[in-house]
């Protein structure tokens, strides 16, 4: 039962993959991708938890180390920023697609393409 947080992140990962494969709308695919990102970030932070550990900052309240693992947190910081970059690019690409075909649904896009060509 203690591993419930792992299960949560795995199920979120599964939801994200289900979303990408099942949804036709491109925007929903992008959201699914961002769900996967979040799931992985939860998983990584959970991996660094130590029973009874505190936030890894030396301060007046915690002058001596009894910390959780700080390295996964540092990795997640990097991963989040990379996720933001991908999300921003994905949105501008979607704006492009919408301007060009007038839709984000692959079926309608295919129709528009056939008309153009």
């Amino acid at each position, binding site marked *: 039962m203690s591993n419930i947080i792992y299960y949560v992140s795995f199920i979120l990962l599964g939801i994200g993959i289900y979303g*990408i494969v099942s949804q036709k709308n491109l925007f929903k695919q992008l959201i699914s991708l961002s769900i996967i990102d979040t799931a992985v970030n939860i998983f990584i932070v959970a991996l660094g938890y130590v029973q009874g550990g505190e936030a890894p900052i030396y301060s007046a309240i915690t002058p001596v180390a009894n910390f959780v693992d700080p390295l996964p947190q540092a990795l997640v910081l990097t991963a989040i920023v990379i996720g933001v970059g991908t999300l921003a690019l994905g949105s501008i*690409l979607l704006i*492009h697609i919408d301007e060009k075909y007038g839709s984000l649904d692959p079926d309608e896009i295919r129709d528009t393409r056939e008309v153009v060509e």
Partner: protein
Amino acid sequence: MIALLIAIPLAFAFASIPHERLGRYFLPFVALFNLVCLFFFMQPEQILEIGKWPAAYGIVLVLDSVSYPFLIFVNLLILLMSLSATLENRYGTLMLVLTAAVNGIILTGDFFNSFVFLEIISVIAYIVAAHKDNALGAFKYLIFGGIGGTMYLIGAVSVYIKAGTLNMAYASFITDPLAVPIICIFFLITFLVELKVLPLGLWAPDVYSNGSSFTPVALGSIVTVSLVYLFSRIFLNIFDLPSPELVGILAMVSIIFAELGALKQKNLGRALSFATISGISTVVAALSIQETEVVSAAYFYLFNDVISKFILFTLSAYLGKRGFKSNKTAGIAFTFASLSVVGFPMFAGFWAKYYLLKALFQVDSYALPAVILIAVVIEAGYLIRWNIELWYKDEEESVLEHGKDTENEEGIESIEEIDDFVPFGAQVVTLILALTLVVIGFMPNLIHDQTMNIANNVLDFRPYFDLILRGGM
């Protein structure tokens, strides 16, 4: 000192922000600087511990006899691309960052650091893929690449959990025999996506056929070479490939389907993209048989494939819908490159296929040779068809047609270009590369010695580990 290979391109990229074209003018000089550094000031077998932190705690850059030839090859490709491609807008700045990133991914000795560089490459790849209004293809790539990147991240973090450090050499300390194959599966998914092995590489045809003069070169040649390096580093050097038979079968199926796909295409760009998929799948299939001779032949095959596809893609981008009648130089380079891809004697491609088949027969592997021979037949079919079509194309009509076509998109610019449609730089570069293929065709040992050296080193983990243990300088 070896950090300069990454720091200098990055610094110039940041410095080129204020003017749009600045990045484009910096690029050849930066690539040249990297090459000069590599040839004269940096020799293999050295490592750099960034920030003076010991290897296990910080990040190390490793220049050994595997990464050195790859670095030279990649920087050479970047130099040639900077001369042949038309980099408008801010794409020059992006190419500077790409230079830093591929150098980084080849040099780094740290799993998470390689993830960061992989993501830089992917982000640039998405942007470059969207060139020429190809947002749909780029978005497809973004979804595939996003999943691939996430898998790599899970793999890298699992290495940290099991080994206690992110360093590649220390990852061999993982004692749990169950853990390594499972971690490797995560890495493998990423590589199947990024190296375009078919079920996961479906994004590639849409991206490569966008008609840009640098998208397929940057992604198909430069990025692919660096990723093949990372693939061999992780699966041949540090860990073992999980279920090599399965990877081999997957890659073989990918070869056949890609060739059939290429045969069906009516658009030159798409046909070439499928041909690239098949070429890289061959390399992956060969690398999955972890024998020195085969691995060496796989690198030779990669060398030939990358250079030929460089020529084919560059010329097909500039040709548009025209033929070779008005431009014989381009035609000759194109024909040479296609003959080399097919494996015609006297070209590098012949030796690539010869060494590969010979090595495969030596290790009693007969499935892959059969697939390669079938692929050659199909490949010869459509490449010769394309050559004939382009050489005998009725010039007048197609030029007019082309002018009409592009009027809506680019307007006056393209009409001016009609007279001299392949730029001088691209002509020189493709011709030089085509001649290289011929020279290698007569002197295959120039490359074969190098690839044997790489293959010997990449399959031996000890020198790499010793190098990192010995520490920085």
